[in-house]
């Protein structure tokens, strides 16, 4: 999850025209902050969803159970999501093929909902064995990509993120920094890559949309009146 910290997006390589004219850096910062907070929020909520299964049904302190995982996990997720969310539009720009498929907020919301749903399923639904769970989640993740992204760069990046994140988690677990309640495959849950992949796609989607429309909500409202 911390893979993003090493590869910071850096200032975008725009022509001197754009960079001199517009305050892209401020823009970038705002986007980063938004993505970071979304990532932290999702990490907290999804973590809650995951621990629900094992935790006592009547937690003495709900607030404590929200922050039950290690304190650094949500910030890491936030950073990672910020990096991913900035990376996607950046890569789009570099490849010169702006992502045009379903560029609407409603689609993004749908994507986020499906992502939460995948997490929900992985946490709540009882599967017979782990292979079934992993296969189902993989199919769902691919379906998510196909429904909301459909770009090769998005797929590649998603796979890369999933691989890196799983690797980092694996390393963490090996070194005993982090631990899973019920590991089933080399000390980690085998569905982890799917979740990472879906998360990468989702955050990328949000990032692209943010890059597309900056202050859309306010201005469009004022426009309609």
């Amino acid at each position, binding site marked *: 999850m911390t893979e993003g910290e090493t590869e910071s997006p850096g200032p975008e390589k725009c022509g001197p025209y754009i960079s001199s004219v517009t305050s892209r850096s401020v823009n970038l910062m705002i986007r980063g902050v938004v993505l970071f907070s979304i990532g932290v929020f999702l990490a907290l*909520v999804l973590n809650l969803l995951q621990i629900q299964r094992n935790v006592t049904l009547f937690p003495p302190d*709900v607030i404590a159970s929200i922050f039950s995982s290690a304190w650094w996990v949500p910030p890491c997720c936030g950073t990672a999501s910020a990096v991913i969310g900035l990376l996607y539009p950046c890569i789009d720009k570099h490849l010169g093929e702006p992502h045009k498929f379903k560029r609407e907020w409603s689609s993004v919301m749908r994507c986020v909902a499906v992502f*939460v749903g995948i997490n929900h399923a992985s946490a709540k639904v009882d*599967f017979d064995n782990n292979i079934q769970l992993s296969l189902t989640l993989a199919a769902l993740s691919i379906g998510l990509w196909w429904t909301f992204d459909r770009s090769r760069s998005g797929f590649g990046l998603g796979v890369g993120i999933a691989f890196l994140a799983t690797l980092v988690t694996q390393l963490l677990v090996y070194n005993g920094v982090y631990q899973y309640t019920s590991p089933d495959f080399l000390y980690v849950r085998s569905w982890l890559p799917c979740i990472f992949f879906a998360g990468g796609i989702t955050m990328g989607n949000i990032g692209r949309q943010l890059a597309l429309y900056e202050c859309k909500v306010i201005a469009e409202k004022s426009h309609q009146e």
Partner: protein
Amino acid sequence: MTLTERLREKISRAFYNHGLLCASYPIPIILFTGLCILACCYPLLKLPLPGTGPVEFTTPMKDYLPPPVDSDHKQGEPNDQPEWYVGAPVAYIQQIFVKSLVSPWPKNLLAVDVFRSPLSRAFQLVEEIRNHVLRDSSGTRSLEDVCLQVTDLLPGLKKLRNLLPEHGCLLLSPGNFWQNDRERFHTDPDIIGTIHQHEPKTLQTSATLKDLLFGVPGKYSGVSLYTRKRMVSYTITLVFQRYHAKFLGSLRARLMLLHPSPNCSLRAESLVHVHFKEEIGIAELIPLVTTYIILFAYIYFSTRKIDMVKSKWGLALAAVVTVLSSLLMSVGLCTLFGLTPTLNGGEIFPYLVVVIGLENVLVLTKSVVSTPVDLEVKLRIAQGLSSESWSIMKNMATELGIILIGYFTLVPAIQEFCLFAVVGLVSDFFLQMLFFTTVLSIDIRRMELADLNKRLPPEACLPPAKPVGRPARHERQLAVRPSMPHTITLQPSSFRNLRLPKRLRVVYFLARTRLAQRLIMAGTVVWIGILVYTDPAGLRTYLTAQVTEQSPLGEGALAPMPVPSGVLPASHPDPAFSIFPPDTPKPAENQTSTGEPSGPMGPAEGVHDSPVPEVTWGPEDEELWRKLSFRHWPTLFSYYNITLAKRYISLLPVIPVTLRLNPREALEGRHPQDGRSAWPPQGPGPARSGLWETNPKGPGGAQAHGDVTLYKVGALGLAAGIVLVLLLLCLYRVFCPRNYGQPGGPGRRKRGELPCDDYGYAPPETEIVPLVLRGHLMDIECLASDGMLLVSCCLAGHVCVWDAQTGDCLTRIPQPGQRQDSGVGSVFEAQESWERLSDGGKGGPEESGDSPPLRYRPQGPPPPSLFGDQPDLTCLIDTNFSAQLRLQPPEPAQPEPRHRGGCGRARESLGYDFSRLVQRVYQEEGLAPVHSPALRPPSPGPVLLPAPEEEGGLPPEKGSPSLIWAPSADGSIWSLELQGNLIVVGRSSGRLEVWDAIEGVLRCSSEEVSSGITALVFLDKRIVAARLNGSLDFFSLETHTALSPLQFRGTPGRGSAPTSPVYSSSDTVACHLTHTVPCAHQKPITALKAAAGRLVTGSQDHTLRVFRLEDSCCLFTLQGHSGAITTVYIDQTMVLASGGQDGAICLWDVLTGSRVSHMFAHRGDVTSLTCTTSCVISSGLDDLISIWDRSTGIKLYSIQQDLGCGASLGVISDNLLVTGGQGCVSFWDLNYGDLLQTVYLGKNSEAQPARQILVLDNAAIVCNFGSELSLVYVPSVLEKLD
């Protein structure tokens, strides 16, 4: 025709018919759909309401055995037992209900005495229970053996550590407040304080500790200083692990023997099993709430896209109703066919909505809305439906396929979800087709009516420019009156794009949507709801009471109980019970009257409470646990980390225990402090009346007490609300300026009209001084360029040729003055030669003075100079000022440094004695009614308005022959094309002229047809002229010597060399009419474009035609517009786009002649249209520039332009768009719609809107501000291009 195509055809046809049907009979269809929904939802009534309320089931006490774990054998009679009634319960709960009364009540007793000694008896009772041992044949059995052994409290409950048992039997009594220590109780000075120390201060929503230990609801316990009945009741709660009938029976017998209850009507014959639903804790609630928030965001963002309908909200509501009722229908249908939902409905609901989605609904709306407005509603609906039918069906098939895949995961939960989703999808489709389409048709019909009503006024206020007969941009210039610019530049305030600080915009947004008010309203409603629900006397109790009455447990409905009640009492093992026959339940009053009259009653007391306080046992006591919070038992068990979710407990019938204490006992138990602190000594009179009489006035003291709390809470809530409102009001005042409604402050007004983003983002604007090209007297009408040269033509008929890089005026082609005299149709050759002669004579001196950096010096043979016609004019000069003007010596000092002198003098002539000129012209006006409007293209209504302008603009030319306007002979210039160094001019007289751009000489001309040339195309030695009468003429240019590129044209430094052929000035050029299409269109041709070997014409007869350039053969006639074509675009990739007066844009496939897509783009005419590789950019009379995705026809975004600058746009590269505004140009990122930069063009042009923008190859931008041109270099753009 392949199978797919046939299928597609069929589907489209079916949808078309369906659309017609829906739009024809809206009301019956909606009624039918409503009935369908109701019918499908009917099975839902059988389902239990969602919620966490417990469910009860009653079994007889006699022969009770815990149900077996597997309940398979019970399948035959499903009504008998609920499905959760399997296996042993979590626990059996025995409540020993103690009612205690001090009687008789002497007057010297204090209020504390009401409960002090009764409570002390609890210790004794607990002792008795704990020590109870059953001895029978199977051995001895004590309480420890059967009770539920608890081990440990949950670690978080430190506060309750001393109060709840931590090990051993789970036995609760009020004595737990004092750790079951009698001494501690006796030394406690403040019993009430001890009891209430753990009461929550806030609204209580679940069971409190007091409720847990007392086992009765707070207001029934009677432990209060203000109680009136002087009866204390509490329970001792025993929790058993196993059901041991004998032990329980013996315990019951013993207790009832020890503490007999004389008039007890309790039957104690049935066990109540209470099943608890799954809990939703806060931990689960957070993800749930998150998903719901995401769901609402999704719905919000989806419905926001509904556009161009009468009532957005109505349609959004219809869309949501469609999805929701399809979900309900799916659940209903599934239940009907025997599938009972096991999933938690609330959890999967958002996902179902997301899966089913609102997309189809939106696609339908969009498709219908983008059909031509002037069609009948029926047809519009049908067309819209049929055009989207294929994609809808395809999407649905895909979704069904995906879900089918999900079904084969063989995970039960996912399978069930998929089943619901499939049924939901199908019913959603059904509803979309019937319900939503019909609602849409009603809406569209309403919009048509409303539109008819309000359409006229806006058009009346539009600038008088409705291009009908000619390309739009011509009209745009006519719209401006140079004499009174401010009337044009002032906009109505609603059109302005305000650039306000972000803070203000947020506040405006809040204010506009009335967010604060709505939030407060919603908060209040929720608050009231909570109050009503949690209020002890409120809804919840009422509901429980209702449930109690209706449930088979209730007294009245006793007869249909599974066990005939008549049998039980007889066989009941306990003889100590006095049992009433079940069918004559005695009301409580009857028993009260049988009670012994209280002896020492004072008369006053007798008056006040006539029923003597007496311990009575009514049927309501048996059900007292119902009055407890429904979270009572789950809370209790949760303290020991035992969940009751999806499990059940069994409640054994209560054991009634009556304690009657005499005053002596009460006095003994009194604490020394009781008398002093709690009860100040008073006289016998007041003391006797006590608090019971003084405080609560009404008969129901406890009730009144509860009401007071309610009022307090209510008042508090009200106060909180008011404070909140005031606070928000203050914030609002602070943030909002006083002049709310008048946009912007005075300080920002000047710059306030900055064009800002669609999304409110306005980047820092810059200001550069452009190269101003002045020289035209009147508004510039046509602009043409080939990258090196720039040709402009004004209303006066002057053509100026400029160097596009330096801004030098190279040539002016005013019309020769002789033209008036020489008459029409003179021999061209003669004229030309004459002109050439004159050029040679006098051109030299002028030229050397005018353009100092003579770039074309190296030109070989020194041929004719600029301004060749000037000598002829000098003879006609009759006024002083014009002579001055004509023969002006070269000016060393020019008024503005960057102002190129070449053509600047014309402006001065304007300034000079203008009024005199005007006067004279007005005198001449009558004599020479110069040009008749009949020559112009027929244009209805507002289009004719420019005519007076022209006449007003006419005078100067008449007065000064140097700038002569010769309308009668040649007519005005209507079209202009430039290629190489040849300018092709089409005139209203039908004359086609070919001029040399450098020398300014007429090369050849053709005047065969007298119908005005409305549009020209000049492409590779081929000239096509479209005429007013709808005919097309194809000319070919022939040069008699070989082409030789001129030296000076290849300017060093600029990379882009002109690719077009350049005709050397020495060549003779001839122009031959090769072909004529006499009746290409029925009406005047308004648009003409050529590319890729094709020629496209657009006409007022609503059609487009595609010709092949080589042989002028008509390939296609494209029909699809419902108005005159105003603009056409075609490029090398064979993309053809057309825009019409109906506001629609059509994209065509040039190869097949089929319409690719059709967008309803603008309100009003489409004025110009251009495409990049990925998008289509259109501008309309509504001053909007819209950017569309070229492949899908989806509108990406739109840019609001300044009034009158609607059509000024240019595409610099594939992702850079430039638009004009009030004295500025703005650069946009095409892909993202970002405003990149706004460039202000000097100060003096601030008032003028940029009418027209032309992008040159070398990334210079020419803007047309009325009569002057501005040449803007954007060097950074160049770098970007490189």
